[in-house]
């Protein structure tokens, strides 16, 4: 499989996943359209946009999603590129999405969009440390940063059984990372959808693709880290991976809608007072399990 084939595969997987995530969201939000789909109903005064920063934003966000999809394994050999430091690479390149929101938000030159830019950056501060701690637990057990090795380490027992705390942390921080239900402050109605409210046409399409792809990738990475990735009986490997990703997406979207939306300030409070201590406890617990020789051997 050449590099062109890999690129095509990754893009196709991303498109299909983004479409599915959009459908799920629409089913869940029947009757009460959320901010993501109702953006821009209020009047927005468009200023003169920054010709350099504003158009780059959606491209940077989409690039983040495409680059992140490269290390996502959908089968034993069905991975764009099995990097040695795959999980770390994923965490790094996904941050480009925040950069895209910041660029477009500032460049759009309207009050709401600039506010959305501030909120997105503050949200980054809130989730990045606990997310890392949730991921560190699985890396410690798998003894590797490669996504395929992490899946192979879960052939016996999934990490969700051994690290339920880490899984819960990952769900919460993952929702923060992909700007879904309780944590959609940068795209909230109070700022008229943020950057979504000021973008139209192809830009809006790229934004929606990037945001749906973000949800897909976060769910898929959760499946890889905690649910055993592609492994499972009877069904072929890519189907298992797709099913787990789908289940995790539904769990995240439905669970997130049970909670009242949080402001960025409360998100930061939650992060520093609850999530980071829990993350440290999770790392300690996993270390104890490893010392007790519970978990994958070898």
């Amino acid at each position, binding site marked *: 499989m050449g590099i062109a084939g890999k690129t095509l595969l990754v893009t196709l997987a991303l498109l299909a996943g983004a479409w599915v995530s959009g459908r799920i969201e629409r089913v869940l939000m029947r009757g009460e359209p959320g901010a993501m789909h109702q953006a821009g109903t209020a009047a927005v005064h468009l200023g003169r946009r920054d010709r*350099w920063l504003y158009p780059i934003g959606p491209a940077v966000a989409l690039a983040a999603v495409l680059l992140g999809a490269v290390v996502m394994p959908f089968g034993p050999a069905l991975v764009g590129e099995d990097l040695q430091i795959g999980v770390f690479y994923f965490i790094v390149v996904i941050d480009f999405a*925040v950069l895209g929101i*910041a660029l477009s938000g*500032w460049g759009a030159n309207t009050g709401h969009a600039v506010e959305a830019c501030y909120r997105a950056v503050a949200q980054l501060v809130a989730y990045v440390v606990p997310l890392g701690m949730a991921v560190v637990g699985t890396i410690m057990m798998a003894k590797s940063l490669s996504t395929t090795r992490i899946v192979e380490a879960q052939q016996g027992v999934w990490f969700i059984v051994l690290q339920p705390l880490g899984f819960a942390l990952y769900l919460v921080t993952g929702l923060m990372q992909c700007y879904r239900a309780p944590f959609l402050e940068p795209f909230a109605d109070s700022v008229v959808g943020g950057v979504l409210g000021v973008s139209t046409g192809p830009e809006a399409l790229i934004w929606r693709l990037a945001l749906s792809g973000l949800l897909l990738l976060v769910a898929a990475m959760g499946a890889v880290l905690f649910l055993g990735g592609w492994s499972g009986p009877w069904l072929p490997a890519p189907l298992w991976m797709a099913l787990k990703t789908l289940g995790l997406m539904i769990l995240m979207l439905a669970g997130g809608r049970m909670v009242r939306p949080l402001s960025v300030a409360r998100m930061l409070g939650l992060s520093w007072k609850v999530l980071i201590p829990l993350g440290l406890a999770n790392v300690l617990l996993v270390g104890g399990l490893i010392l007790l020789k519970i978990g994958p051997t070898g």
Partner: protein
Amino acid sequence: MNVEQTAVLVAFGLCAFLALAGALGMATTMSMFRSGIFLMASFIGVGGLFILLAADLMGLLQIMMYIGGMLVMILFMVLFMHDPGGSMMAGMPDMMSPIERFFSRGLQPEPEPEPDEKADDDTGSSLKEDAGHDAMNRDEMDHADKAAGHGSHGGMDHAHMDHGSTSCGDMDKMGDMGGMDMDMSMVTPVRPVAAWGAAAIGIGLFALLLLRPDWPVAGQHPNPDSARAVGMMLMHKYMIAFEGAGFLILLGIFGAVFLARTNQHAEAPGRALPVARREDPPPAESGPAPGHEEGKWS
């Protein structure tokens, strides 16, 4: 030269261009937001150079640090600084050198003074059809504004606006002082000296590079599993320094939290403000600012 070498060469060219152009743009653009983004681009280019040197972990660390860190730094800069969008200098392109003008292209000059806009809105809502009358009305308002600004400078709401709104108030102030208040701008007299000094240092570095004939080249291949090697180094050989740095950072966080906390001591001067805020504030126009009257407010 085969395909792979060409690809490496092209990638090197791109990364080097990103690093150099980003640095140049950082130093010459008039918008602080753009400046931060340019600096980030420069560091991402350096991260790409790291990856080309097979130090992929270092490259990704660089990118991770500078996306998140630089975005947060930009956020604080925007919140604290006087003119983060560079609108003050964008209005006077004559004061910029050509390269500064290039990197500041598309920046928005300061908006028109507030009363003009207000007049626009008022007439726009009531007399939308009568364009001629609208324009005449606006002219009248302009004259009235000039009279208020330069003549008596006594209009109550004009004086209030001077301090209330940041962007428009500054324009008014500048007009009052004859537009020559250049202390706040990014243009300083030492700028040409600094530019020539930087150019001289750059030429000197290039000369060193060219005049040294046998640049040492290591014969060994880079370690493919650099993450493991770095981890082993940090946790074996340099563990004391590593943990010590972590402890210092923790102390820094404690110090920051302690400094940012409201002082609880009854006689501390910082306590006057929060206590005063709980009472009913007087009308803002009369007398000096409430913080100066210690006896009345504490």
